[in-house]
C-alpha cells in the first residue's frame, strides 16, 4: 500500500523508539515523545513493538491511501476525518483505497499519534527511523513528512478490535519529577520557590526541549563540568530559568540538572504546547 502526503501538517514525523546507545558519539536518542500512546497504537493494530508511527504536532497531516488498511489515532484531541467525516479516536478504523485522512485543528494538547497496521518500508539510520534534527538536511529524511512524499507499507489484517483505555490526565498541569544529580546544589528555599511557581511553555519549544517562562531561581555558585543529559532532564540556565530537555536534545550539557522526569512525565509533557502552564512536583522518594 502507498500513502501519499497531500499536506504534511505543522510538523509530522515518523518515529519509533529512537536510537539509544549512540549518545557517546553526540547523537541524540530521538523517538516518539509519548511512548505510552505510541505503544498503545501499535498494540491495538496488532503491530510489532517499535513499528513506526506518525507523530503529528498541532496541525495534523492530510494523507491519501491508495488501498485498504487499518489505522488508529490516539493522543491529543485532533478530530480525525476520513473523507471529511469525523471518526472517533482510540479505535481501530478501516480505511478503504482512495480515501483521505485529514484532521481538524487540535483543540487541546499538542501531539497525536497515527498508527497504521502493517510493516513500514522506510529507511532506518543507526537502527531507527526517527529523524535526525542536527546536521542532516530535512529534505533528505523521509521521516519528516513533506508534501507529495509517499510511504510504503505492507498492510496486515490482524483483527483486534479493542478500544484504547485512555487516561484523562493529558490536561493536568502537574509534572512529577525525581531529583536530578545537582538537586542538592540548590537551597531548600530555591527548590520551594520552583515547586510553587507556575511555568508557561515558551514559543521556542520543540522536541529538543521546552523552554519555560516564569519565576527565575537562584543558580548555584559552583560551576559544573559538562556531563551527560537525558530526555527529561530539567536544567537551570545561567539566567535561572528551567529548561526541560526532550528526545532530540543534545547529549551533554553544562547547566545544573535539578530534576529528572521519568517516561510517564515525558508522556504527559508531549501533550503540552507553547502557552500551556505546568508546575513541577517532586516525587516523595524521587
Amino acid at each position, binding site marked *: 500500500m502507498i500513502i501519499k502526503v497531500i499536506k504534511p501538517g505543522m510538523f509530522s514525523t515518523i518515529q519509533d523508539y529512537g536510537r*539509544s*546507545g549512540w*549518545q*557517546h*558519539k*553526540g*547523537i*541524540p536518542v530521538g523517538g516518539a515523545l509519548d511512548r505510552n500512546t505510541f505503544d498503545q497504537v501499535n498494540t491495538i493494530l496488532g503491530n510489532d513493538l517499535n513499528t513506526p508511527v506518525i507523530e503529528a504536532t498541532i496541525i495534523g497531516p492530510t494523507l491519501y491511501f491508495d488501498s485498504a488498511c487499518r489505522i488508529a489515532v490516539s493522543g491529543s484531541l485532533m478530530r480525525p476525518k476520513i473523507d471529511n467525516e469525523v471518526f472517533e479516536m482510540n479505535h481501530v478504523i478501516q480505511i478503504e483505497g482512495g480515501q483521505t485522512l485529514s484532521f481538524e485543528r487540535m483543540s487541546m494538547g499538542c501531539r497525536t499519534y497515527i498508527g497504521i497496521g502493517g510493516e513500514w518500508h522506510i529507511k532506518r*539510520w*543507526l537502527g531507527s527511523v526517527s529523524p*535526525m534534527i*542536527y*546536521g*542532516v538536511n530535512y529534505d*533528505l529524511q523521509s521521516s519528516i513528512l513533506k508534501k507529495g512524499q509517499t510511504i510504503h507499507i505492507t498492510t496486515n489484517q490482524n483483527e483486534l478490535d479493542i478500544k484504547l483505555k485512555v487516561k484523562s490526565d493529558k490536561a493536568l498541569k502537574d509534572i512529577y519529577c*525525581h*531529583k*536530578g*544529580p545537582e538537586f542538592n546544589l540548590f537551597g531548600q528555599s530555591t527548590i520551594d520557590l520552583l515547586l510553587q511557581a507556575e511555568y508557561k511553555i515558551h514559543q521556542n519549544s520543540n522536541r529538543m526541549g521546552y523552554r519555560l517562562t516564569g519565576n527565575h531561581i537562584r543558580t548555584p555558585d559552583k560551576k*559544573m*563540568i*559538562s*556531563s*551527560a543529559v*537525558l530526555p*527529561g532532564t530539567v536544567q537551570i540556565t545561567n539566567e535561572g530559568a528551567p529548561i526541560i530537555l526532550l528526545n532530540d536534545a*543534545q*547529549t*551533554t550539557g553544562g547547566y545544573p*540538572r535539578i530534576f*529528572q*522526569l*521519568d*517516561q510517564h512525565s515525558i508522556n504527559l509533557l508531549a501533550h503540552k504546547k507553547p502557552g500551556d502552564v505546568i508546575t513541577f512536583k517532586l516525587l516523595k522518594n524521587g
Partner: protein
Amino acid sequence: MINYEIKSYGPNAILIELEQKISEEISLKVNTLYDALQTSELRRNIKFIIPAYASITIGVDISIDKLSDFINEVKLLIEHISISQNQKNIRTWTLPVCYDEEFALDAYRCVSNLELTFQEIIELHSQGKYMVYMMGFLPGFPYLGILPERLNLTRLDKPRKIVPKGSVGIAGLQTGIYPVQSPGGWNIIGNCPIPLFDYYAKSPVLLERGDKVKFSPVDKKRYHELKKEFNNNQLNLLDLLEDDN
C-alpha cells in the same frame, strides 16, 4: 584506584562522578571504567553509557526495586578495577585547518582579547597535540584539550545563531570542531575541510573519545582541494592517521 561518587539520575539512570576536574588522568580513568562496563556482566542491563569529562552516566533497563542491587554491583566493579598504564592503541589524527579570514569569524576578537597576532594564535593552536576528552553537544563534536593558557578566551557573550559546518573554535582551555552547522558560542578561528560527521558513512562519526588530534594549517587552495577530494571519494580518511608504531 578511582575516587567516585554515585548520584541518582531518575529511575532509569545512574551517574558516576569522578573527581570533578578536567585532566588527562581523570579522563583516562573514565575510559578505563567505560571499557570495563562495556565488557562486564552488567552490560545486559545497560541501555547506554555516556562518558563525559569526569563522569559516566549509565542508562539501565531494570525495575526501580533492582536499582540498588545494580548500583552495588557497579561499586564492586569500580573497586576492583585496575588502571593499567597499558592503554589500547591511541589514534592520532592530523586534521587540516584553514585559518583564512574567511573562516576565522572571531579573529578580531581573539587578537584584541588575547593580545597576540593572529599568526601567533595559529602557531599556538596548531603546535599542540590534543586529546578528545568528550564527545557531545552535536553529533561527532569533539571536546579537545588542553589549550595553552595563552589561548584562554571566554565564549562569545551572545552565541552565534549559525556557526558553519567545519568551524574550528576555542573556548576556555578547550578547542573543538563543529561537525554540522549549529548555533554556538565558541570563538571561531578556522575551518576543517574533513567532515567529522557523515550521515552516509558506515560509521558516521570520525573521532572517538581518547583519540589525539593535531591541526595542520592549510591555505584556501588546499582547503578546497581537500573538500573536492573528499567529495570525489579520493580521500582516504585513514591517511589522516599517524602510524603509531
